């Protein structure tokens, strides 16, 4: 498939992370044009491009930017831009390569976005495990300051921007934008109640835009090539390219830039290199561990874009989507499982993750994730009864969308989808257990 390399153009170029090479490759070359545009024009280009947030939610970026109140309604408060580089959704590992191989592209995207949003102080919130990447980012930031791309009066435009790298310390939930804000503020990384939404009242109670690394890295291309060129790629509702992270039982795991709408079967065969010899496809989690698991049959009929994955159903109704065999594109973390996979084991693994990562704030998620994990351990160990499966399903339903943030749903959907699509495997683990629900 002939797709422009919007995000990966410089990958594989020696020393692509150093400023001279980056500049030679055109990075920062979009700045003069961006500074020649009115801030509102930049936002308009982003809106017109149809670019959707690449962190997982797929919310239109330009629309999000549009929620920032105009200067006269901000009571003198600054606007902050936060780059979400907390990449921690299991199965997702694209941002780390973007930052490692092309940090200046991200910085350029943040400069242009800051200009559009009237931001003069921006942060990259990067997960603590990526400290080795953070050091490289800091080096790139320093290079950018030295070259006059950051700091006061950038390129004589009169525009000032300070950019800082803030390192997390091990908490999946900080990838949730309001938890990221809490963490940046020096709190535990716990999501905040909405409303107010961050664009109105975010970090330090100021208007704040949080965008994923990949999202921000698209912006320079939009300035250079225009919204129409971007819309020409992908599907009408899911324009552009997306970085997919492929892992699991495939021959060439890795990160791939594809046009949205790419048929999953083709992606699996070409980019992923197909399955290992003699194996059959069993299941795929297509958008990071939080999205519903799909059966092979459903997956192979899907295209990799937001609508197709959701079977064109509204995003909020995950039960209907699961029943229709769909899922979500999410962060593009494509986890492939072949016929050697024990789905009970797999789901237990995921629930251990969610029980470990629940921030502990809302009752259903705090108590329910650990509870679901314990039930699953008993199912896995053949110590549970059929009634436990009913409890498990109930708990998932009682957590889903009953919490402050999306984490609850993220823990619930894997359970709901596994119990629907791989019910037989779960039943097999419990049906010979005559000891009853209370016997474990």
């Amino acid at each position, binding site marked *: 498939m002939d797709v422009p390399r919007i995000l*990966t153009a410089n990958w594989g170029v020696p020393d692509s992370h150093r400023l001279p090479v980056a500049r030679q490759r055109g990075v920062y070359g979009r700045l003069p044009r961006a500074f020649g545009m009115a801030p509102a024009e930049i936002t308009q280009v982003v809106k017109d491009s149809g670019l959707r947030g690449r962190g997982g939610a797929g919310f239109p970026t330009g629309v999000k930017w549009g929620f920032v109140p105009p200067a006269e309604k901000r009571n003198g408060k600054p606007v902050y831009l936060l780059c979400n580089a907390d*990449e*921690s959704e*299991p*199965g*997702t*590992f694209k*941002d*780390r390569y973007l930052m*490692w*191989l092309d940090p200046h592209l991200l910085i350029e995207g943040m400069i242009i976005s800051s200009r559009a949003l009237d931001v003069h102080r921006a942060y990259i919130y990067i*997960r*603590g*495990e*990526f400290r*080795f990447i953070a050091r490289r980012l800091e080096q790139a930031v320093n290079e950018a300051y030295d070259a006059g791309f950051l700091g006061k009066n950038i390129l004589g435009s009169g525009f000032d921007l*300070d950019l*800082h790298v*803030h*390192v*997390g*310390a*091990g*908490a*999946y939930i900080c990838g949730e934008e309001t938890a990221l804000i809490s*963490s*940046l*503020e*020096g*709190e*535990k*990384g716990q999501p905040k109640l909405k409303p107010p939404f961050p664009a109105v009242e975010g970090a*330090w109670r100021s208007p704040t835009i949080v965008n994923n690394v990949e999202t921000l890295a698209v912006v320079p291309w939009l300035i250079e090539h225009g919204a129409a060129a971007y819309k020409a790629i992908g599907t009408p509702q899911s324009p552009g390219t997306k970085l997919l*992270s*492929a*892992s*699991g*039982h*495939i*021959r*060439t*795991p*890795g*990160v*791939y830039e594809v046009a949205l709408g790419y048929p999953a079967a083709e992606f699996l065969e070409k980019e992923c*290199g197909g399955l*290992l010899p003699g194996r059959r496809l069993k299941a795929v989690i297509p958008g990071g*561990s939080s999205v519903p698991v799909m059966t092979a049959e459903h997956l192979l009929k899907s295209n990799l874009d937001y609508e197709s994955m959701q079977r064109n159903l509204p995003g909020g109704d995950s039960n209907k989507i699961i029943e229709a065999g769909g899922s979500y594109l999410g962060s593009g*973390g494509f*986890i492939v*499982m072949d016929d050697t*996979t024990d789905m009970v*084991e*797999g789901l237990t*693994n*995921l629930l*251990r*993750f969610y029980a*470990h990562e629940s*921030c502990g704030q809302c009752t259903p998620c705090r108590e329910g994730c650990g509870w679901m994990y314990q039930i699953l351990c008993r199912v896995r160990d053949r110590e549970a009864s059929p009634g436990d499966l009913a409890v498990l399903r109930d708990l998932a339903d009682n957590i889903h969308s009953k919490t402050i943030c999306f984490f609850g749903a993220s823990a619930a959907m894997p359970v709901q989808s596994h119990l629907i699509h791989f019910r037989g495997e779960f039943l097999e683990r419990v049906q010979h257990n005559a000891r009853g629900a209370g016997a474990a």
Partner: protein
Amino acid sequence: MSHAAPTAASRGPREWTPEQRAEIDKILARYPTRKAAVMPLLWMAQDAWDWIDLDIMRLVGRTLDLPPSHVHAVASFYTMFKKAPTNKYLIQVCHTLSCALVGADKIVEHLERRLEVDEHGNSRDGLFTLMRVECLASCGSAPMAQINEHYYEKLTPEIVDQVIDAIRAGRNLAEPRKEADQWTFPVS
């Protein structure tokens, strides 16, 4: 050369050095509030003193005008802040789904045998501490482990042995590895 975890006495007083104080001033300048510096300061302290004890939490609280309980809560929330000492090399093996699918458990079991770890994950030679951790965003290059700050990817028992031997022989962890600049990982 002793590889044992430093004792309280060997760690020195929990007070900032002039160099650290200068660094703190720089950190504070990055944020509109002092509280925001709590994680950067905890990192600084962990780099200096290996792990975060109660005295360090008090010190960070004093420095930022925060109650020590707040620093404690923050430190307890984030798994990377060490609330207890570990050995010199902390090996954190990811065991979340993608890694589990391609043999993370085997890597852990191999390390357990090879390092003869106790129930706390400490190796018999006092050089390593082994832990299982959740997803480190290295799913394409699974199975993997983070050793101190560095990622070791596409692990097999043989590679694990080489890495352990190299560390025991005094290898510099910061030495670049070929996986670092790859983004696809064909199965050989």
